[in-house]
C-alpha cells in the first residue's frame, strides 16, 4: 500500500512540473508587460520601468526566470501581487479559510443528499418516487450555479428573510452559498449513485443474500450500498474540482472573501502574479486530492491491486 502511494506520488511529479511551466509562461503570454501593469499607465517612465523589470527579474533569460520561480514556489514564495505589492502567499493564506469552509460544507450537503436521493431512487426503481427524484436531479444538473444562487437569495433572503444575502463570516452566511453548491453537486451524485446502485441490485449476490434470509435492511445497506458507493468515490475528486470552480461564482455572488473571489478580482485587475500563485496552488491541491481519492478507492475495494 505504501509503495502504491509512493509510486503515485512520483508519477504525479511530471504533471506538477508541467503545470508550473504553464503557469510560469502565463505571465509572459499575457498581452502587456507585468512591470507596466504594476506601475500603472500614468506613472511609468522608461527608467522606472527598467528598474521594476530588473527588480522582478524580467530582464533575465527565460529559463533562469523559470528556475527562480520554481525555487521560490518550493519555498512558498510566489512573488508579490502586482496590485498591492504584498506577498502572494500571505494574501492567499488569508483568503483560504472561507473557501475551505464553503467547499467542505457543500460537499457534505452534496454527498448526504445525493447518496440519499440516489439510493431511494434505485430502491423505488420505476415508481413515481424514482421519476420525481430523477426529474429533480436532471433539473439540478441543468441549472447554472449563479441562477441557483440568485433563486436561493430571492427565496430565503429577500422573501423569507431567514439568511443574509451577503456571506458574513458566521455560520448564517455560509448556509446559502453552501446550499447552492451542494444542491448542484447532489444532482450529479444522485444520478451516479442511482445507476451504480441499480447495477449492484441486479447482481447474483443480491439474490443470494436475500435467499439466505437476511433482513432487507442488511441486504440494502451491507450488500448493495457498500458496493454501489465504490464507483462513487472516484467521482468525489471530480466533484471537488466542480465545487472549487463553483466557489469562484458563489463567492462572487455572496461577496464571500475566499480565494474564488480573489481569483476573479485578480483577473479583472490584471494582477497576474496573484493569478499565477492561485492557479498553481489550486492545481497542485487538486492533483493531491485526486491522488488521495485513488488511494481511498484502492483501499476500499479489495479487487483493486496496487502495483
Amino acid at each position: 500500500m505504501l509503495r502504491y502511494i509512493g509510486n503515485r506520488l512520483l508519477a504525479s511529479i511530471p504533471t506538477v512540473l508541467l503545470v508550473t511551466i504553464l503557469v510560469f509562461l502565463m505571465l509572459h503570454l499575457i498581452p502587456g508587460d507585468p512591470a507596466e501593469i504594476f506601475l500603472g499607465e500614468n506613472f511609468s517612465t522608461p527608467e522606472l520601468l527598467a528598474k521594476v523589470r530588473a527588480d522582478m527579474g524580467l530582464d533575465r533569460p527565460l529559463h533562469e526566470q523559470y528556475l527562480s520561480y520554481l525555487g521560490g514556489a518550493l519555498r512558498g514564495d510566489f512573488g508579490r501581487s502586482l496590485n498591492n505589492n504584498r506577498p502572494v502567499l500571505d494574501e492567499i493564506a488569508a483568503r483560504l479559510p472561507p473557501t475551505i469552509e464553503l467547499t467542505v460544507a457543500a460537499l457534505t450537503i452534496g454527498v448526504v443528499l445525493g447518496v440519499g436521493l440516489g439510493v431511494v431512487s434505485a430502491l423505488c426503481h420505476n415508481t413515481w418516487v424514482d421519476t420525481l427524484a430523477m426529474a429533480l436531479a436532471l433539473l439540478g444538473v441543468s441549472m447554472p450555479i449563479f441562477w441557483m444562487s440568485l433563486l436561493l437569495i430571492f427565496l430565503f433572503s429577500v422573501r423569507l428573510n431567514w439568511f443574509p444575502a451577503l456571506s458574513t463570516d458566521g455560520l448564517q452566511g455560509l448556509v446559502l452559498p453552501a446550499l447552492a453548491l451542494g444542491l448542484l453537486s447532489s444532482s450529479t451524485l444522485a444520478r451516479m449513485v442511482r445507476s451504480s446502485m441499480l447495477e449492484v441490485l441486479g447482481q447474483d449476490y443480491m439474490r443470494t443474500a436475500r435467499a439466505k434470509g437476511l433482513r432487507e435492511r442488511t441486504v440494502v445497506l451491507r450488500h448493495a450500498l457498500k458496493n454501489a458507493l465504490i464507483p462513487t468515490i472516484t467521482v468525489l475528486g471530480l466533484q471537488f474540482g466542480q465545487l472549487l470552480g463553483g466557489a469562484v461564482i458563489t463567492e462572487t455572488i455572496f461577496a464571500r472573501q475566499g480565494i474564488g473571489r480573489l481569483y476573479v478580482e485578480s483577473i479583472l485587475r490584471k494582477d497576474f502574479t496573484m493569478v499565477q500563485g492561485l492557479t498553481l496552488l489550486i492545481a497542485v491541491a487538486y492533483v493531491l486530492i485526486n491522488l488521495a481519492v485513488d488511494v481511498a478507492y484502492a483501499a476500499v475495494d479489495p479487487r483493486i491491486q496496487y502495483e
Partner: protein
Amino acid sequence: MSNPALHQQSAGPAAPAQPARQRSLWLDSLRRMARNPGAILGLVLLVLMIAAALLAPQITRYDPAEIVPRDRLQAPNAAHWFGTDAFGRDIYTRVVYGARISLLVGVVAVAIATLLGVTLGLLAGYFGGLTDALIMRGVDVMLAFPGILLALVIVAVLGPDLLNAMVAVGISSAPTYARVTRSAVLQTKTNLYIEAATVAGVPTWQIVLRHLLPNILGPIVVVTTLGVAGAIISGASLSFLGLGAKPPTPEWGLMLSEGRSFLRQAWWITTFPGLAIMLTVLAINLLGDGLRDALDPRMQK
C-alpha cells in the same frame, strides 16, 4: 444527428457490403430514441429554441439594446411580456436574442473541443507508444486545473471577451473528448476489419478516418451533445463573472449579473434569462441522455 446521417451517404458507395447493416444500426437507435419521451421533449424544446434564435427579429417588437429610460423596471405586462430592465430594455426581446449567443457559444466551443480532442484522442489511441504517452501527459496537465478554472486561466491570458470565452471553454473541455475518443479507439482498433485494412495496405489516414472514426462515432456524438449543454453553462458563467460578453450584449449570463442588484424590486430581470438557460441546457441534456441510451443500451455513465 446529422453526423451519422452524412456518414451513411459517404460510406455507402465505398463499402457495398456494409451499408445495409450499418444503416439499420443507426435506424434502430433512432427508433429507440423515438420511444423515449424525455428525448422527444428535449428535441422539441431545442428546436423551439433554435427557431426562436433564427427568427429573433420576426418574433420580437423591440431592439435588444435600445435604452428607453421612461420604461425602466416595468413588471411583465401586455407591451413587455417579460418586463423591462433598469435601462428600459425589453427583456423578452433580449432573452430571444440571447438564444443566438448562447447556442453559438455552445456550438463553437464544442466544435473547438471536438476538433482538438477527437484528433488528439485518435492519434493517441491509434499510434500508442510515445505519441500516446506525450498526448495523454498533456491531457493530464490540462485536467489538473479543476472545473471552470482552466477556462478562467485561458481567459486571463487572452483577455476577457465573448470570442475568447468560446475559445477558452472549447480548449478547456478538449481533454474529455480526447479521453473518450482514445478509449473508444483502443476498444475498436483490435477488431479484425482494422487488421484486414492494415494488411491490405490501406494508408494509415484512411484507416483512421474511414474505418476507425465511423465506428467510434456513437460515444463521440453523445459527449458532443452533452458537451454543448456544459459549454453553454460555462460560457454564461464567464459572462456572468464579467469575463465574457460585454454590455449591452443580450447574453443570458450577463443579463443575470446585471439584474442581481434589482433582485428585491424586479425579480423578472433575472428570472427569464435564468429560465432560458435552464430550459436550453435541460433540453440538450434530455436529448443527450436519450442518445446515450439509444446508441448503446449498455453504456451507462
